[in-house]
């Protein structure tokens, strides 16, 4: 058997047992496990080939690319291969812009309705359940000048390397904290890039907190890898530590990185600055779908509320992988399998006993895979200075160009949370829909109010969470009651010219 590729919305079925969103390790594994249990599965993904961001481009990667990116990258091949051999339907370059309970105008509400766009057309499909495996994105890194051309995320450089074989050609600085920082530095050095400095913003105090988890870490796979990477990077590149301030400067584009550390302030002429301070769950789809979430202090982000079977607060929606809280690629793949098994169980394809039997070995590996995670979370938790910008000039909302100063200056109007702030300043109203400012705005408000971010809350995220044109929406099924609600009268009954309508 092999996956059924879907290249147009007209190829989609009316209804699937399971819709999986995202073709990273979690989504691929969830779709595979569910399909292997006999569910009809549709996997939708933004990109042209499976793998997500971590295994981006794995199906086309040359031997040279694989060797450059290392064993962890190549591990994606097995997950992708198993998925491609499954009976799932696979829609590449398909965006899922909404998921909501299916509520027909007449008849029983059941399952979900999802808005899917593919090749310039939108379609509403139904699914009995959904698993959101939307992965992670890099945490906002709001420093002065981070909007300048020439300042990019570390992940973007990896994606450029994975998908297009591009490596930085000019003076490159990598700044921030997190396991990816040294991995990327080592990959770029290996590929011959001119990395002139690694600016490590890891706060010193983290080490003490992380030590509590050190034993687990040393026993974990992360431990050895991390030590090797550090040693390798140190051999080749200047590493700047004890950083208290960081700024990207330039006129219309980056020209230098200004870094303040124990030794004073230095200006490093730079062509490309790659920023990274860890990854956070990509929340937009789960929030827009109504899934509850809460503040996760250790990961300094909101994470959706999920139980041990990946079930969210919404009855038919599960979440797998980093989208539910950062667990890394290996953990995500295992978590995805659990989510797929849980879906099969909830839809009656597996008994509870079968589910548990199949899940037991997965859970055992997952436990060991996650052993070093608390250490990593503590060690690389970015400092307040780089999450909650003190400099009033620093842009927080890149889309609407709202600064930290403007946000703070609006607090005296009695703002309690990000939604009121959004109404006042438009932060979060741009095309990125708050993905690059949501956490920062919440944390600034929390700091100003002197309360925990969980008490402040997050943006109300609205659909569509992916770009969909008005034209695409206009072509969706209409109904007489909807026409009456808008136009006041129905001149031509819809049933005559909209055979697709679910009236």
């Amino acid at each position, binding site marked *: 058997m092999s996956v059924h590729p879907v290249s147009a919305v007209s190829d989609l079925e009316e209804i699937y047992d399971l819709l999986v969103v995202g073709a990273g390790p979690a989504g691929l594994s969830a779709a595979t496990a569910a399909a292997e249990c006999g569910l009809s599965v549709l996997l939708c993904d933004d990109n042209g080939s499976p793998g997500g961001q971590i295994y981006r481009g794995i199906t086309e990667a040359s031997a040279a690319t694989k060797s450059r990116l290392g064993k962890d990258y190549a591990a994606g091949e097995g997950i992708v291969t198993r998925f491609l051999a499954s009976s799932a339907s696979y829609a590449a370059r398909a965006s899922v812009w909404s998921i909501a309970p299916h*509520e027909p105008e007449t008849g029983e509400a059941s399952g979900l309705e999802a808005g899917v766009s593919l090749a310039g057309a939108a379609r509403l499909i139904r699914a009995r359940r959904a698993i959101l495996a939307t992965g992670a994105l890099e945490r906002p890194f709001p420093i002065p000048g981070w909007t300048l051309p020439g300042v990019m995320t570390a992940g973007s450089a990896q994606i450029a390397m994975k998908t297009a074989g591009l490596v930085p050609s000019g003076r490159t600085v990598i700044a921030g904290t997190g396991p990816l920082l040294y991995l990327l530095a080592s990959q770029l050095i290996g590929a011959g890039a001119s990395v002139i400095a690694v600016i490590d913003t890891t706060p010193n105090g983290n080490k003490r907190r992380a030590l509590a988890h050190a034993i687990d870490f040393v026993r974990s796979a992360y431990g050895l890898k991390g030590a090797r990477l550090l040693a390798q990077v140190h051999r080749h590149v200047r590493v700047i530590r004890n950083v208290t301030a960081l700024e990207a400067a330039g006129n219309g584009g980056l020209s230098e990185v200004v870094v303040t550390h124990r030794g004073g302030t230095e200006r490093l002429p730079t062509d490309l600055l790659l920023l990274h301070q860890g990854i956070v769950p990509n929340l937009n789809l789960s929030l827009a779908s*109504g899934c509850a979430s809460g503040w996760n202090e250790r990961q300094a982000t909101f994470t959706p509320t999920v139980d041990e079977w990946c079930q969210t607060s919404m009855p038919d929606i599960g979440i797998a992988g980093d989208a539910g809280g950062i667990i890394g690629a290996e953990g995500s793949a295992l978590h995805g399998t659990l989510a797929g098994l849980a879906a099969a169980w909830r839809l009656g394809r597996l008994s509870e006993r079968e589910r548990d039997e199949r899940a037991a070995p997965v859970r055992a590996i997952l436990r060991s895979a996650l052993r070093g995670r608390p250490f990593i979370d503590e060690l690389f938790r970015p400092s307040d200075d780089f999450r909650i910008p003190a400099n009033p000039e620093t842009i927080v909302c890149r889309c609407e160009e709202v600064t930290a100063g403007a946000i703070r200056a609006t607090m005296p109007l009695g703002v309690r949370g990000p939604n009121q702030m959004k109404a*006042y300043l438009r932060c979060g109203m741009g095309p990125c829909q708050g993905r690059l400012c949501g956490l920062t705005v919440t944390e600034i408000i929390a700091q100003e109010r002197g309360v925990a971010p969980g008490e402040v809350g997050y943006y109300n995220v609205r659909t569509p969470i992916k770009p969909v*044109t*008005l034209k695409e929406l206009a072509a969706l099924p209409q109904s007489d009651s*909807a026409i009456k609600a808008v136009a006041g009268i129905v001149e031509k009954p819809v049933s005559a010219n909209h055979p697709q309508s679910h009236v």
Partner: protein
Amino acid sequence: MTDRDVLVVGGGLLGASIAWGLARLGLRVVVLDEGDTAFRAARANFGLVWVQGKGLGKLEYSNWTQASAALWPSLSDELKRETGIDPGFSQPGGFSIRLTELELQRGVDAMNTLQGQPNIARYPYEILNHRETKARLPAIGPTVAGSIYSPLDGHANPLRLYRAFHAALHKMGAAYLPDHRVERISHQDGAFTVEGPWGTMSAGRIVLAAGIGNTRLAPMVGLNVPLVPSRGQIIVTEKTMPFLHHPVGNIRQVDEGGVIIGESKEATMDHHRPRTPVTAVLADRAMRMFPIIGELNVVRIWAAFRIITPDGFPIYEQSRTCRGAFAVACHSGVTLAANHAFTIAGHIAQGEIPASLSTFSSERFDVSAAA
């Protein structure tokens, strides 16, 4: 209770406009509001300052609306002067675009009936066919039947207006208390005491401007604010180059560049989730009106509840049994903002809603119930 004269319950556009109006008359105002996720009609407000078509069945509402449109320039100027925030008001004349001949005819009939009401303050309007509409709105689509134009219609930026009211309130030292949901109101010895999980607070006067919350609160002070469910859905697009320089009844390009679309009314208060068939109709009709916007990406779709009384007209009323308690309820919070800030606030400060506004008393609903 010596340090405050009036409690305003509700800090949305309506409450803020009245509170500001009271504060600028020298009253010491406290605004009690809910928190970050309060239902806010202002967040879904279309931003029209709209006269045409309003007042069918109640000519006083037409006159009331016209009066507010006429006061708007001074409201805009004063807010800008006081806060430096420009509420984005302009009055270039507005269009109701009609997609079909039947829609156009229905619009014409409604305007004729409206303006045929005795004692109505007539205002200018024009019925335009396709060609005439196209001459003024070059972006309209080929199937548009025509439009109704009135030079009195205008628009503002509702969120900046909302912020300007709050900034002006703040500047005048009025107290704004978020996370102060009011659960109970009592009246004793001429003082009103409001109560919530946060504590209690008293003043000699109280204004209920709590939107759908008014239905619950009004009876506590001898008032009645019946509302009917009305859900409206809004689509907002990404920013695009200016193409629409006039407000249209259901489509507006805001001054930041985005296009806002919304004209649905559903008799439900079920939830905030948009319904896709309604989204499809909104998008389809908007595109037939202005085909150019079809390529725009949609950034947000959501639904909000309107504050609609059973006959659709506002309520402005003082309690007969608890003097000093006022209820205000209406949709069109932007159109009427100038009336609320200047006129209604003035009446409340004086302690009396004048007989000329008695048509907006909720007693009209008692009568119809008895009939």
